[in-house]
């Protein structure tokens, strides 16, 4: 069975794709592993398990998961509004969604800090209620939510556009309530895209440095993100230690991403069964 494909030469295309990925992704990553392999186990363990570093994993991964979850909920809402409701200025709003991609992260960080600090436009009202946002872990979540928004919107949007109205009408005509139509018909169709968007937003948030650094406050044990730990190790010319922490971050990220993918496959199987 030979199928004709658009790209000539399956072997060549695959070979090139693997080479390209290897050059762009695998090579730099393996360099990190090799660099950290230079240190003994004891040193490695000490570098990655110091209390300060452990606290930073908790903040980085916790805030990234929370931000991705917030984005999943509100990103879905934004995508829904953009696809389903025609309103004046929709194209403009649509374009706005991509801005967090285009904005240099440092600019985003400074702008968010200005807004959410105790004397900022938004922060002053929270400060009056006794809630501090900038320079606390809460500020980290705000920054990560900002940079992750486009991922969910842009992955869900095309799927939602392709979802035919007729399906919803059929569900309604079969006696489904609006809630049932959403949870049993629309949501299962969107779930894979939503999970992809969540995963991308999460992965991006874990590695984010530029925007977070301005709003975090960077207090050891409280508001230090793991990328800052890496930067401070580099600052001390401790390259092995920095790559050791990076390796741990990569491994945790990979495990989390694999788990999310597995969940996605499992839910798809269950839905089709």
């Amino acid at each position: 069975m030979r199928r004709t494909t658009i790209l000539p030469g399956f072997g060549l295309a695959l070979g090139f794709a693997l080479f390209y990925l290897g050059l762009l992704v695998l090579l730099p990553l393996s360099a990190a592993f090799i660099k950290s392999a230079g240190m003994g186990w004891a040193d490695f363990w000490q570098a990655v398990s110091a209390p300060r570093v452990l606290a930073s994993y908790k903040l980085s991964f916790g805030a990234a998961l929370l931000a991705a979850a917030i984005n999943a909920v509100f990103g879905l809402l934004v995508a829904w509004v953009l696809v389903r409701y025609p309103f004046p200025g929709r194209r403009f709003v649509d374009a706005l969604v991509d801005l967090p991609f285009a904005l240099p992260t440092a600019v985003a960080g400074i702008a968010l800090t200005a807004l959410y600090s105790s004397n900022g436009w938004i922060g002053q009202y929270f400060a009056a209620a006794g809630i501090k946002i900038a320079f606390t872990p809460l500020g980290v979540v705000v920054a990560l939510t900002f940079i992750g928004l486009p991922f969910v919107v842009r992955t869900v949007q095309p799927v939602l556009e392709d979802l035919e109205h007729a399906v919803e009408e059929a569900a309604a005509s079969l006696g489904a309530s609006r809630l049932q139509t959403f949870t049993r018909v629309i949501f299962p169709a969107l779930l894979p895209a939503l999970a992809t968007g969540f995963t991308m937003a999460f992965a991006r948030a874990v590695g984010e440095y530029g925007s977070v650094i301005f709003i975090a406050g960077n207090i050891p044990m409280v508001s230090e993100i793991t990328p800052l730990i890496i930067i401070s190790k580099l600052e001390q010319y401790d390259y092995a230690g920095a790559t050791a922490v990076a390796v741990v971050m990569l491994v945790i990220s990979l495990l989390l991403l694999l788990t999310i993918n597995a969940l996605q496959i499992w839910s798809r199987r269950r839905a089709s069964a």
Partner: protein
Amino acid sequence: MHHPARLSRLLAATCSLLLLGSSAAHATELLNASYDVARELYKDVNASFVPYWKQKTGEEVTINQSHGGSSKQARAVIDGLAADVVTMNQQTDIDAIAKAGVLRADWRDAFPYHAAPYGSTIIFLVRKGNPKQIHDWGDLAREGVQLVIPNPKTAGNGRYSYLAAWAWAKEQYGSDDKAREFVGKLFHNVPVLDAGGRAATTTFIQRGIGDVLLTFESEVLQITKTFNKDDFEIVVPSMSIDADAPVAVVDRVVEQKGTRALAEGYLNFLFSPEGQRIAARHYLRPRDPAVFAEFQEQFKPIRLITVEGAFGSWAEAQARHFADGGEFDRIYQPH
């Protein structure tokens, strides 16, 4: 083809001119790898150096600048950035380059004043009227005072602030244990540890956080020139630390490019009265006593200790205080 001979002569002349031009441009380009906030300073230095060098040697030179975080720049030079000279704000960064074998180990002896043409020190900036009555280091550890200091792990100003506080407390209370306790209290008064010096300035000035900002004198003087002068007051403590900004020729690069004379000329210019005046105009303390005297209005008298004097050497201070698990980390460890 009426004049083939003339045409070919013209062509040859053009070619040789082009060749000459390119080789000349090649020989007289210099790259200065420097730290972030020195961008404006070296713009002024270069503007004065180019005519000076032209007059002295007849050579037309172009000086290129590369700025970034001090230790990132050092890393780039080690990794092969073809900088002829490095102008840093901390000795450890040039030591790291020397350790990689890219420049001579005894670089501190290559120029006067231990190869540091200018320096700064740590002083305080407080809000108008000094409402918290902050006059010296001891006031910073009081309950209810909030300080903004850049992170000593990532910023030179932070490291110098930390060391100055430690040295003051050791002098005052007489022991390392007491100094540790004092510095611990002081850093527990810090609500934000910004990654860089400029970010700390923004936090204090724009975000309105903290009662006092600890940073380089050059930054403080710059702030009072740039922002509304009346909103802030400068406080000069009873003592502080000498933060000298060292320079070095990158031997590996100048040997390869044949630019040693120019590189040395460039760095020597920094030590000349003219170079010293430019540094002083950028609020950096010049080393030349005569030039320093010209600017004595600007630089308040302050007793300065050195890292070498109080801590042995930068390497020792770094290992004991700022390395992982060192004194600074222990401040934040739960007891």
